[in-house]
């Protein structure tokens, strides 16, 4: 177990370093000079060169990279070119909004996804299964900004149950969380159902029935735990997606989350902010995949304990 874990942690660190390298170089070769953009059209070449030197942009690119990496390890992500605030502060500030939205949306997605998926599998080919799977197709296919607008119109404007923009209190998050969570709930319910049905066909399920195991114990103890691996994979990816911010939902509901911050940064060529944002997304994804790998091992002893006497 500890060897498995250690290997995964090393991999994770490697991936983060690789991403930092790629991000830095790609952002430095794409067209669009941030200094030019920042100084406006009428800046003299001398002034531009001076600012460039001030920002360290005249250094060789590998020096810039190591400088940036070193600073980042010390918690200094640089200063936004345009807002002149530390990138880390801006990221943390936006992260607060995104995280709150993400937690609500994810809890909704997990609860409804798992419950609906299990119910659909248990009532396979019955009315409930068809109903839930029809809903899930709708959920997967409906673009979330469209769901968001429908929710705003109906629950916000018509019924006036929830506010439709901003993020001042808990009730502000209800509609965005539903709009964001719907698709993930739908995809989790589909994979749960498929995986459960696959497991139900296995020999060990028949063995369990032959022992007299029945009802929900058969479903939860014998089927669900075996069905979890693909579900954890999908649910983990989903958590990564949700935590890295939804540009559309945050825009529609005017929430200053990571998604909105990144879009603005890219449009302005605010390199430190974009680099910091990409590193944030990379770290979140890598950490979540690490957690998913650890969860695999918790669920399935074949992963935790390695091969054994197979065959």
């Amino acid at each position: 177990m500890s060897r498995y874990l250690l290997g995964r942690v090393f991999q994770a660190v490697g991936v983060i370093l690789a991403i930092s390298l790629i991000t830095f170089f790609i952002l430095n070769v794409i067209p669009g000079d941030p200094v030019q953009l920042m100084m406006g059209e009428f800046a003299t070449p001398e002034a531009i060169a001076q600012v460039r030197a001030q920002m360290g942009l005249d250094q060789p690119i590998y020096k810039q990279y190591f400088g940036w990496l070193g600073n980042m390890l010390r918690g200094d992500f640089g200063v936004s070119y345009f807002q002149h605030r530390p990138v880390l502060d801006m990221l943390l500030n936006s992260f607060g909004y995104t995280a709150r939205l993400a937690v609500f949306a994810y809890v909704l997605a997990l609860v409804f996804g798992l419950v609906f998926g299990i119910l659909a599998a248990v009532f396979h080919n019955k009315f409930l299964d068809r109903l839930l799977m029809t809903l899930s197709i709708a959920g997967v296919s409906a673009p979330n900004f469209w769901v968001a607008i429908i929710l705003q119109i109906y629950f916000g404007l018509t019924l006036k149950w929830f506010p439709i923009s901003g993020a001042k209190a808990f009730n502000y998050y209800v509609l965005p969380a539903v709009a964001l969570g719907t698709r993930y709930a739908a995809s989790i319910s589909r994979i749960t159902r498929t995986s459960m049905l696959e497991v139900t066909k296995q020999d060990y399920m028949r063995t369990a029935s032959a022992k007299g195991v029945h009802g929900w114990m058969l479903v939860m103890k014998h089927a669900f735990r075996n069905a979890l691996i693909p579900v954890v994979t999908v649910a983990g990816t989903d958590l990564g997606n949700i935590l890295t911010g939804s540009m559309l939902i945050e825009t529609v509901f005017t929430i200053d989350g990571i998604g909105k911050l990144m879009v603005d940064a890219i449009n302005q060529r605010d390199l430190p902010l974009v680099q910091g944002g990409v590193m944030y997304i990379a770290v979140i994804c890598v950490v979540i995949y690490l957690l998913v790998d650890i969860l695999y091992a918790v669920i399935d002893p074949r992963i935790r304990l390695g091969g054994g006497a197979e065959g």
Partner: protein
Amino acid sequence: MSDNILQVRDLCMSFFNKHGELPAVNHVSFDVERGKTLGIVGESGCGKSMTSLCVMGLYPQPQGKIVGGSILFQGRDMTKLPPRELHKIRGKGMAMIFQEPMTSLNPVLTIGDQIMETIRLHEHVSRQEAKRRAMEMIAMVGIPMPEKIFASCPHQLSGGMRQRAMIAMALSCDPELLICDEPTTALDVTVQSQILSLINRLKAQTGTSVMLITHDMGVINEMADTVIVMYAGQIVEQAATADLFAHPTHPYTSGLIQSIPPLNREVEELNVIPGSVPMLYELPKGCLFAPRCPYATARCAAERPDIVTASEGHQVRCFRCMPGWEGQ
């Protein structure tokens, strides 16, 4: 009443699909005597596993349905019991071990958990007591280091060990009837004989009756007191084991016995029965075995024979055993 633990009478189980009704188990009747072993033998697809799954009530539903007959276990008809009662009988009254020890154990639970689960399900005992009994069972089936195996997961064990664990699990609540569905087919030959002698030893020790399903006439010879030979969902011959091997009467039984490779002499070619078991949706009109039978006549192709008594305790489904057969 006789000392039969299980009485199956005229059991019919059919699948229903686009081909219509497919009789997988066709008017099957047999008894399992207390403390004895009944062997069921036949090729793949002859209905022997389906018969045993019917007895357990575990045949595939809703595609499959018992359309007639009765399964009396300890005097109660399994086909009419409500699910609640069936759950109580499975694992306690009758238990089953399966062909594939590799896939028949739950991969995410330890061996100990799986054995204790059976005990805790049927008998209201504490965790400690269940654990103690599980350990006892593991030791009883000849697994070395019970503590280690108790905490192991199925993938850490060899096929033979897994099958032993399956047997420990099946016998953990002292079932009256143990159904073994091809218990050794997936195992090495040496392990196979170990498992068979283990089943025999435990049978003698616990007094449980055994229903042994196999395609291997050798295994039948070694294990069974009485044998039924099945073909395409029907019983074609039924007799005491010694009688069956001494006087195989149905051409299919003779074919099965002749296709055992002899050990004491070299053979150029093994005897085989030509053809294969017919699919359920294209059963012949007459005797089901007629297309593969060396003795088939016009009558065999036209009518289905009933099962008749050829001699004391020996029943055969073949026109050749009926009065009026002229040896055409």
